[in-house]
């Protein structure tokens, strides 16, 4: 049943969070610092294993590497296959990196039920790594849904105010309804083809009507996750109510599951339906970019501003995915990675402010550059990254997406570029209102610049964003062949 | 189907006649009698006195228990009748199956005996 290749770094990366989870289970909950140390070490070891994935990755082929197959249910022709290619490798790296950051962020801000909190995060990490590495439709669905459980608990238990319950319900039920329609489509595909293995399904031709129906079912699930307008309401609620680390992982990785789903499943399996529905996606994306940006301008809650700007950025991502050419798809993947870093960093900055002053309303913050200069510099850098300033990764991403879209449709590119202007508007305005101006000492009297732990959380993100912005070829070269083979499969 | 039911037609006629007869008697008694109820007439009779107490007594459940036990053992007897007629013809298996049946009912009997269902007071 098992190939005894446990030295497969992918399996090691997948299993390390589980080992950490089991160790955490047996530690009594009163030894809080020991729990945190164990969790941090587990996350670091997982990150190191995933670096091995990058180092040993062969970027000159588009086949699935580090693959492993387990006989799960052979009599029903269902197997458990793992494998990575260029598209999924970076998501796994992002997951492991963000988990370390999340555990570090909650070092002192989570006060109760520490052990359960860390268990939820390690479980979440395990599920997320599996989402990005399984090559089987049924198992992708299982892990896609399983992610909901720890996230629901994180938002609901450690959230900040009473509205967290409503936010947790909305998050869970929205995603569940969308995913259940995908379940019916999955079952119909399994019944028709006889297997759910991805590589078998790639070579199966569905009829056009069936492709359209299946694509719509899959769309309902992924569109809620990304989120696309009009299924986006859960995102601002969930972000506003989640703890800082919850927001970081939600914005950083969970939204990318939707984009990954489109890339891995919708496009290769249903090519004609993709081409058929491209106008719909483009329309929804443009509405997302423009409407979400305009809504951002009106928000007063810091986290909601960043949440709506996430919706706007993911509009770019979907344009990139559905432009169906090399630049567009590479740009969307890079934009997803960069958004994972930038939004997480912005949520971290807001979390730093929240830890100190316990409020997220914009009106109380002003003139922070005078008392928190180091924080101000980081926040400035991330603001520029958010709006797509050249030199940061999101510029490269948006540039590639716009190049890809330009080859398809000029008007689309025109409207998308307006989105960049609006992005600049809300980002710079937010930064201005918080950092410059006079200090509002009638609300706050004590200020403190970022501590060493927070510095070391923000610095890697900064360096990564700079690296991706100045020398993106080191990332793009890995995914080149995989994206090329994806496009070839289409046409 | 018509052949079988000619014998039952007698029973049907009997049923109908008895039904009509009882309805006639009842309705005649209800319609032809002058009914002027007043308080003294409908009160309970207790040798001319005003009633001391409610005429109803609580139903003693042991009557019900006796009726149920009678039902069970009567059915046991009704099973014993045909068995006793053919006992010569059925082999040993038939004897022992009835003994098992009687044994189970005896266990039930012992149970109710010790539980006190047979105490009359």
């Amino acid at each position: 049943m098992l190939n005894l290749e446990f030295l497969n770094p992918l399996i090691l990366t997948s299993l390390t969070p589980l080992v950490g989870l089991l160790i955490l289970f047996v530690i009594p909950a009163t030894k809080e610092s020991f729990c945190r140390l164990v969790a941090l070490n587990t996350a670091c070891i997982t990150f190191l294993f995933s670096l091995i994935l990058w180092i040993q990755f062969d970027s000159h082929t588009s086949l699935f590497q580090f693959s492993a197959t387990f006989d799960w249910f052979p009599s029903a022709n269902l197997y458990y296959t793992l494998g990575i290619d260029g598209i999924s490798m970076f998501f796994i790296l992002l997951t492991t990196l963000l988990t370390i950051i999340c555990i570090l962020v909650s070092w002192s801000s989570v006060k109760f039920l520490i052990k359960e909190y860390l268990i939820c995060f390690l479980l979440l990490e395990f599920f997320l790594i599996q989402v990005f590495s399984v090559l089987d439709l049924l198992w992708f669905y299982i892990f896609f849904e399983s992610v909901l459980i720890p996230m629901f608990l994180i938002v609901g238990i450690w959230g900040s105010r009473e509205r967290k319950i409503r936010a947790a319900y909305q998050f869970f039920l929205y995603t569940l309804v969308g995913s259940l329609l995908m379940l019916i489509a999955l079952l119909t595909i399994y019944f028709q083809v006889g297997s759910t293995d991805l590589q078998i399904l790639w070579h199966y031709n569905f009829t056009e009507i069936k492709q359209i129906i299946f694509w719509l079912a899959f769309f309902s699930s992924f569109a809620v996750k990304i989120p696309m307008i009009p299924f986006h309401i859960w995102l601002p609620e969930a972000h506003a109510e989640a703890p800082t680390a919850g927001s970081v992982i939600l914005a950083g990785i969970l939204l990318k599951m939707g984009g990954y789903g489109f890339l891995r499943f919708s496009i290769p399996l249903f090519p004609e339906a993709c081409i058929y529905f491209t106008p719909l996606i483009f329309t929804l994306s443009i509405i997302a970019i423009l409407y979400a940006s305009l809504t951002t301008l009106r928000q007063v809650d810091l986290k909601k501003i960043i949440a709506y700007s996430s919706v706007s950025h993911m509009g770019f991502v979907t344009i990139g995915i559905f432009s169906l050419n090399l630049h567009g798809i590479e740009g969307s993947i890079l934009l997803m990675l960069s958004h994972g870093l930038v939004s997480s960093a912005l949520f971290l900055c807001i979390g730093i402010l929240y830890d100190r002053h316990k409020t997220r309303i914009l009106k109380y913050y002003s003139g922070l550059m005078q008392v928190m200069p180091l924080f101000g510099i980081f926040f400035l850098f991330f603001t520029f990254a958010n709006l797509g300033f050249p030199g940061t990764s999101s510029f490269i991403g948006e540039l590639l997406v716009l190049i890809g879209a330009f080859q398809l449709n000029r008007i689309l590119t025109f409207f998308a570029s307006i989105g960049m202007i609006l992005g600049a508007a809300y980002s710079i305005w937010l930064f201005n209102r918080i950092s410059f101006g006079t200090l509002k000492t009638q609300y706050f009297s004590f200020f403190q610049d970022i501590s060493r732990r927070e510095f070391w959380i923000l610095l890697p993100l900064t360096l990564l964003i700079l690296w991706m912005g100045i020398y993106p070829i080191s990332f793009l070269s890995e995914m080149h062949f995989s994206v090329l083979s994806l496009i070839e499969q289409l046409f | 189907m018509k052949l079988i039911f000619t014998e039952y037609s007698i029973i049907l006629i009997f049923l109908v006649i008895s039904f009509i007869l009882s309805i006639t008697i009842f309705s005649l008694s209800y319609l032809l009698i002058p009914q002027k109820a007043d308080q003294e007439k409908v009160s309970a009779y207790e040798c001319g006195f005003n009633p001391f107490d409610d005429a109803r007594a609580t139903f003693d459940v042991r009557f019900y228990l006796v009726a149920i036990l009678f039902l069970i053992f009567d059915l046991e007897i009704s099973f014993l009748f045909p068995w006793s007629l053919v006992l010569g013809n059925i082999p040993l298996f038939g004897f022992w199956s009835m003994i098992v049946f009687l044994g189970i009912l005896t266990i039930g009997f012992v149970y109710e005996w010790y539980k006190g269902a047979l105490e009359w007071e």
Partner: protein
Amino acid sequence: MYNFYSILPEIYILCNICILLMYGVFFSTFPSLGYPLLNKNFNLLVLQILIFSFLLAFSQTPLNLLNWNNLLISDFFTYYAKLIIILATIGWLLLSFGYSIKEKLNYFEFWILVLLAVVAMLFITQAYDLLTIYLTIEFQSLIFYILASIKRTSEFSTEAGLKYFILGAFASAFLLFGSSIVYGLTGLTNLSDLSKLFLGLIGNEISFNLIIGFIFILVALLFKLSAAPFHVWSPDVYEGAPISVTAFFSILPKLAILGLLFRFLLFTFYDFISYWQSIILIAAFLSILIGTFGAFAQTKWKRFLAYSSINHIGFFLLALLSGDLNSISSVIFYGIIYIITMSGIFAFTVNVNFYAYSKTYQLRYLSNIKGLAKTDPFLAFALTIILFSMAGIPPMAGFFAKLFVLLAAVQVDAFGISIFAVIMSCIACFYYIRLIKNIYFDSVINWKVMEPMHKMSSLILGLSLIGILFLFIDVEMVSIITLLMSIPFLH
């Protein structure tokens, strides 16, 4: 001689019942011993009897033969169903150990009735003739009527027993009436003779009266299964009966009566499939609908679990529509998971007692578990896992059960009802999440003091938890058993 071989476990249990009855009645009315209470003795004796009968049933070889003048059948299904029923009863016995001592259910007859009910259910799985169906169902129902009203000092219990008796007797009358119509029109009562009679008889030669008779029997069986629209008795009866008896009603009879329903519908009346498919469809639709919406308004545990099991029955009936091997095996698989889940949740509700000065209270209201996460974190975790499994969230076992049932429904192109079932499953998920919210999210002002659970019921809770959490590792093992169990129903 094989006549006796196939009912050997039943004969063993019956002999033991007689011996136990004598032992009980002799000793409990012995004045010089002080009229001892035999509760604990009986508990352990019944456990021993059940374990031995399990070993007896297990060591038989599964034969395929008709017994007792074609009244009973013995095949793969009966062999495994007997084992499952005896195992489930052992599980139920362990979880109600503590309850009967605590609630002073001192009648030793209770345990004798339980053993008789087990014998009845073992006979139900073997029934092969219309008369035998009636006899065994009456046998089981009569015992259940007495069990529902076993607590003589509670008027709830008496009311529940009375309601169950009146409605159940009415349903049994329907069963008898339907059987007599079928016998009157065909002259046969044996199920296999009937199936041979109907073999070619579709279309023009079926008289309408036969369908009427068939519908009466089907209605009676659906009543016993508490499928909608014949479900009205189950919330009231579950509510009034003492909770260990509710556990007994909920866990055990479903598999036996399902087996009977399979034999009746799929083996005998398979040629009438065009008639009963729409009836089962309506019953499944209504069950899922009523089970979902009925549980919304509930505030007490027992009624909530009653509506939840009506929901599960809807899923059972859903997979019955196609009538081929895979769908029957998916129903049996769902049945096994249902037994495991219900054992787990009843292990929790039967044995949890709260202490508020000078009295210990049973768990009655849904809001009694508020703040359970703080008082007993592991119990809260266990309850969360079981509730998520009932809702059908991966990776718990409940998801896989629903997956296979939906697969069976999709195979028949019943997309409308599948989508409906899936959406209702989302709505049902809401109230399961509401319970989890009660456990984890609320901030508790009055902490509840809980007594520790009885050791045996925590054993059952643990076993159920392991089953639910780790079933997905080896689904094949269970599916082989269910496939074997569903072979006899093929036409």
